[in-house]
C-alpha cells in the first residue's frame, strides 16, 4: 500500500481524462449568423443615445485641454497665484486653491459623516417607523434647497452669528491650539468656519441617505440573532450592522466628499475668496470651484489666465470624478429611486 502510494507520488499526479469524455454531450459548432450591414446598424444604433453622457464628459475634457493647450505655465505647481504682479512675470500656482478645497471639504465631510451616522442609527434602530416616515424626507429635503439660497442665507444671516459669537468664542478659548490663534477673526464672520458649516449641510443629506440604506440592508436574521444572544441594540448596530454595511458607509463618505469638494456658489458667497493660505482657521481662502466661478470674468482676453483656470478645472474634474466613480462602486443594493436625484 505504502509502496503503491510512493510510486504514484513519484510518477506525479495521474493524467486527467481527455476533455471530450464519451459521457459529455457532443458539442456542435454553430456558425455565427452572418449579419447584413442593416442588421449591424440596428445593433449599433441604440449605443448612440446611450453614450450621450460620455460625449458630454469627453467634450468637457477636450474643451478644458484645448484651452490650456497643455502649455507649461509659470509656477503652475507652486502656491503663488499672482495674475498681475507689480513686478516680474505672472505666477499661476494652483496649490493654494487645491489646499483650500481640502481644508473646507475634509472637515465638512467629517461632520456630515458623524451627524449622518447618528441620524441614520436613530432612524433605523431606535425610532418607530411612523416617526421616521415623516422625519426622513425632511433630511432629504436639505438636498433640494438650491445652493444659492443657502449662500444668501449664510451671507446675510448666519455670518452675523459666526462673526459676533462663535468665532470670538473659539478664538478666546482655544487660541492655544496651533491654527486657531494668530490674527483675530474678521467681524464679518465670513471665512472657513461658515464655509465648513454650509458644506456640512449640503453633504448631510447624501451621507445620511446612503448610511441609512446601508443599515437597512442588514438581514433580519443577523439582527435578531444578535439580540437573542443578549446584545443590546447599540451593540448589534456597532458590531453587526456597521461592519455589514461598511460598503454603503464608505460610498457615503466618497459621494459626500465629492459633493463638498465640487460645491461652487454657496462657498464663493461666504468664503471671502483670497489667493493665499489662511493664517488661522478663521481667515478666508480660495477653493478651486469658487475661484474658477468668481474670477472667470476678469480672465477674459488673457490666454494664460484662462489656461491656468482650465488647469484648475482639470484638477477639480479628476478629483471629483475619481471620488464619484469610487463611491458608486460600493453602492450595491440601494433603493435606486431615492439616489437617482442625488
Amino acid at each position, binding site marked *: 500500500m505504502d509502496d503503491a502510494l510512493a510510486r504514484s507520488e513519484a510518477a506525479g499526479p495521474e493524467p486527467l481524462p481527455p476533455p471530450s469524455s464519451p459521457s459529455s454531450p457532443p458539442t456542435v459548432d454553430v456558425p455565427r449568423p452572418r449579419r447584413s450591414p442593416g442588421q449591424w446598424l440596428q445593433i449599433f444604433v*441604440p*449605443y448612440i*443615445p*446611450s*453614450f*450621450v*453622457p*460620455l460625449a*458630454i*464628459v469627453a*467634450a*468637457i475634457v477636450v*474643451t*478644458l485641454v484645448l*484651452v490650456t493647450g497643455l502649455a507649461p505655465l509659470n509656477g503652475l505647481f507652486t502656491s503663488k497665484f499672482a495674475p498681475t504682479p507689480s513686478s516680474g512675470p505672472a505666477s499661476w500656482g494652483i496649490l493654494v486653491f487645491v489646499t483650500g478645497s481640502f481644508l473646507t471639504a475634509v472637515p465638512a465631510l467629517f461632520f456630515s459623516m458623524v*451627524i449622518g451616522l*447618528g*441620524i441614520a442609527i*436613530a432612524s433605523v*434602530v*431606535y425610532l418607530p417607523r411612523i416617526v421616521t416616515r415623516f422625519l426622513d*424626507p425632511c*433630511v432629504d*429635503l436639505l438636498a*433640494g*434647497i*438650491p*445652493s*444659492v*439660497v443657502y*449662500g*444668501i*442665507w449664510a*451671507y*446675510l*444671516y448666519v455670518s452675523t452669528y459666526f462673526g459676533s459669537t462663535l468665532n470670538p468664542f473659539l478664538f478666546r478659548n482655544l487660541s492655544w491650539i496651533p491654527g486657531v490663534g494668530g490674527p483675530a477673526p474678521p467681524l464679518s464672520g465670513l471665512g472657513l468656519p461658515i464655509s465648513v458649516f454650509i458644506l456640512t*449641510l449640503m453633504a448631510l443629506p447624501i451621507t445620511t441617505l446612503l448610511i441609512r440604506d446601508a443599515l437597512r440592508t442588514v438581514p433580519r436574521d443577523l439582527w435578531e440573532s444578535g439580540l437573542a444572544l443578549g446584545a*443590546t*441594540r*447599540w*451593540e448589534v448596530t456597532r458590531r453587526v450592522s456597521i461592519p455589514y454595511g461598511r460598503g454603503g458607509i464608505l460610498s457615503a463618505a466618497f*459621494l459626500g466628499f*465629492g459633493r463638498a469638494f*465640487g*460645491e*461652487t*456658489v454657496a462657498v464663493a458667497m461666504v468664503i471671502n475668496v483670497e489667493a493665499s493660505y489662511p493664517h488661522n482657521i478663521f481667515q478666508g481662502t480660495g477653493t478651486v*470651484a469658487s475661484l*474658477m*466661478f468668481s474670477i*472667470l470674468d476678469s480672465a477674459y482676453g488673457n490666454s494664460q489666465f484662462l489656461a491656468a483656470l482650465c488647469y484648475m478645472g482639470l484638477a*477639480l*474634474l479628476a478629483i*471629483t*470624478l475619481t471620488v*464619484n*466613480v469610487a463611491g458608486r462602486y460600493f453602492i450595491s443594493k440601494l433603493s*435606486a429611486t431615492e439616489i*437617482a*436625484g442625488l
Partner: protein
Amino acid sequence: MALPSVSTGATPDDNILFDRSARTRWRIGFDRWAGRLLPFLFLVAILPILDVVYYISKSALPTLTLKVLTDTSYRDPDALGVPIITTAEMMTLATLLAILFGLFGGIATAEFLSERAAGWARTFANMLAGTPSVIVGYLGYFAFCLYFGWGYTMIAGVLTLSLFMTPYIFRIADLAFSSIPRHIREAALGSGARPYQYILKVGAPIAFPQILNGVFLAVAIGVGETAPIVLTTHGSVILPQSLLSPAQFLTATIWENFNSPFPVAVALALQAAFILLVVVVGLNIVVRIISARYRKRLEGLFQ
C-alpha cells in the same frame, strides 16, 4: 402586570436574566440613552431648513407685491418680472432639450444594451451627474459663448443648462425601464411585439409616472443652478427678444445682488431667493407625493 414568581432555588447571581452587574447596567443604560439622545440629531438637519425658510420668507414677504412679481418694464429694475418670465422660458427649453438628450439614451440603455455596455453607460451618466456645475459652466462658456461666438445669449444658457440636466433624466429613464418586471417584458416580446411596440405600448405606460417624476426632479435641480447660468448668460434687464439675445435667470439675479451696498438690490435678491425656494421646495414635495402614490399602485402590478 405582575410576573408569576417561579421558585427554582436559584439566586439572581446564577442567572443571566437577573444579571445586575455594573457592566450590564452600563451596557443597558448606554443603549437606552443612545435611543433617547440620537434622535435629537435630526434637529441638526431640520432646524436649518426651517431657519432658511423662515429667514427668507420674513425678509422677502413684506416687500413682495404683485408689481414686483410681474413688472417687466426696463425702467423699473427693482422688479422680478423679467427674470421670472425668462427663467420659465429657459427652463422649458432646457427641459425639452434634456429630455431629447437623456430619455432615449436611458431607454436604450435599459432595453437594448448588453449588461456590460449598460454598466459603462451608467458609469458615464453618474460621472456627468457628479461633475461640479462650474465645470459644465466652463464648457458652455468656452464652447458656446467663445468658440461658437454666441456671447452671453439665451441659447448658450439653455444648452448649458440642458447638458447639466441630461444625466438626471437619463438615469431616471434607465431606472424606470429597468425596473419593469421581466415577466411583463417577456410576455410582450414573446407574443410577437416588436421592441418599439413593447416600449411604446407596454413599457411607456408603466414607466411614465416615474419618468415624469424624474423630469420634475431635474427641473428642481436645474432651476436652482447658478454657476452654469451665470457663466453663460446674465446681465440683461429686458426680456430676451430672440434666442441670440442676453437673458436674465433668477439665480443670476441673486448672485449679482446679494452683496450689493444698496438695500433695494439686496431686497431684490431675497425676493428672488424666496420665489426660487417656493418653486424648488414645492417641486420636491410634489415629486415625493407622486413617487409614494405610484409606488403603491405599481406594487400591485409587480406581484
